[in-house]
């Protein structure tokens, strides 16, 4: 769609979709300092067992395998739903990062804002499918907890660094 690119500068948005990438969470200290208004839930969130949750329902509308899915408002990476996993669980053979970054996304179904934890799945090379970068509320690397430009496959004992894909897990309703 190169013709579209020539119409408006805004079309360069697609550029950023690929240019920012890795997101993770910031150090605990940064989170405590910089994200006081948000729940301190993202840290160590990945150790929980992810329950399969239906998507594409009236309450959770949209396709998790698309960038437009409402939970993806601050995601940066390959969608695990396209990589053999789901929006809440990692593909086979990968491990969920224990630390992550968060965003606040609006669910069009119930009109509420939700805190979303974008736990990365780690331990294999990049999935390479369904790359998506949206930056609603994204912060600079100086504020790690809300920055999607870190590689959050960090700090796990057995999945330290190699990034595979990103999930989008509901933490709760934003207050």
């Amino acid at each position, binding site marked *: 769609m190169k013709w579209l690119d020539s119409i408006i500068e805004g079309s360069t948005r697609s550029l950023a979709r690929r240019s920012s990438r890795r997101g993770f969470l910031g*150090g605990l200290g940064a989170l405590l300092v910089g994200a006081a208004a948000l729940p301190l839930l993202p840290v160590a969130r990945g150790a929980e067992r992810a329950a399969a949750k239906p998507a594409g329902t009236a309450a959770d509308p949209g396709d998790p395998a698309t960038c437009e899915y409402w939970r993806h408002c601050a995601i940066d990476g390959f969608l695990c739903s396209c990589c053999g996993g789901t929006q809440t669980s990692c593909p086979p053979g990968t491990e969920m990062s224990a630390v992550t970054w968060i965003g606040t996304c609006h669910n069009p179904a119930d009109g509420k804002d939700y805190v979303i934890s974008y736990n990365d799945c780690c331990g294999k090379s990049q999935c390479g499918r369904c790359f998506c970068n949206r930056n609603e509320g994204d912060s600079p690397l100086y504020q790690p907890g809300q920055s999607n430009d870190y590689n959050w496959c960090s700090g796990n004992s057995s999945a330290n660094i190699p990034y595979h894909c990103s999930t989008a897990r509901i933490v709760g309703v934003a207050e």
Partner: protein
Amino acid sequence: MRFSGSSLWCRAALLAAMMLAVPMAQAELPSDIGLKPENVSLPPMSKHWVWVNDMVFPHMSDGQIHLFDGDTGRFLGMVSTGYSGHGVLSPDGKTLWSAETYFSRHTRGTRTDVVTVYDTSSLKVTAEISMPPNRGSSIPVVGVSGVTDDGRFLLTYNFNPAQSVSVVDTRANAFVGEVETPGCALVHPSGPRSFFSVCADGGVMTVVLDDTGHVVSQSHTDPIFDMTKDPVTEKPIRIGDVWYFVTFDGDIRPLHANAKGVTALPAWPLFSSEEKKAGWRPGGVLQLAGHAGHKRLYAIVHQGPRDSHKDGGRTIHVYDLESHARVQTIRTQHPVGVIAVSSDDHPLLFAASPEATDLYVYDARSGKLRRTVTEAGTSIMYLNTR
């Protein structure tokens, strides 16, 4: 060379020349085996060289830095930089350091973090300095690693997710130690023995080292930047003793920085209030560039909402650093999100897009496109010039 249908004389002359050339064409070529040297030497170093940091996002464990000559567009060679490599040139340009991460089984196994030392005249590895495996992995912005002004200590940002900075002695080629920087990120050199990091609360931590690379002092300011209302990006540029930060909404927030600490200089806008209302803002990955001698600041700009702060654009505004006036506008044919300017008196402006493979070379003063270098990289995120 073209001939008209009536230029029979020319055709005859060409035929005669070909006949004369036949004996030469039939001569056997000499063997290349044993020919010395077997490696091409690099030409003399030029201020118009550019080191293109390629994150290779689809295959991040195969990071690369490509070297091009901006005057010819010629690809001169490359180095392999592993996972999340980040290049830093020495002040004299003779050395390229790259902080790199490796795994013993490619994507698993024992993790090793190193600073690899490359000789820029040969592109060979001359040393490898092991560090504790705590490097952060992120988009390769300017503060991922840096070097003190005299080239003595290389500084790399750690994030696991505890935050610290590793200090490497480039004279001894040895790891010195880690400086804890809780709540503060990245490294911005501010002298021969000092650097600062920007903290999540908008304050700044200044760290002063001694001649062995160990901490002499660490100080923390009150918030300087409003990281809630209009944060500064982590994409500043340094010109002399001033680091020029830019906010999401397009205000330049300069910091004078040295070993004594930082001083906030008066802010100034990239846009008029009308332009801001129309959505103009800076964007991109390496979105600012500067030229100290000409006192110029270059900024990639576009129109978009707040969350488009990483988007590139087709417009580069040029500002006078003294008057803060916009003195030039460069329109690019394609969207760009990465720019850098050489420091010489006839500077080149290099521009690229992380999602494209071309490198555009402009005359930085006239804004005219001098050449397009194709196949310059896969995910071009960062450029080193000098």
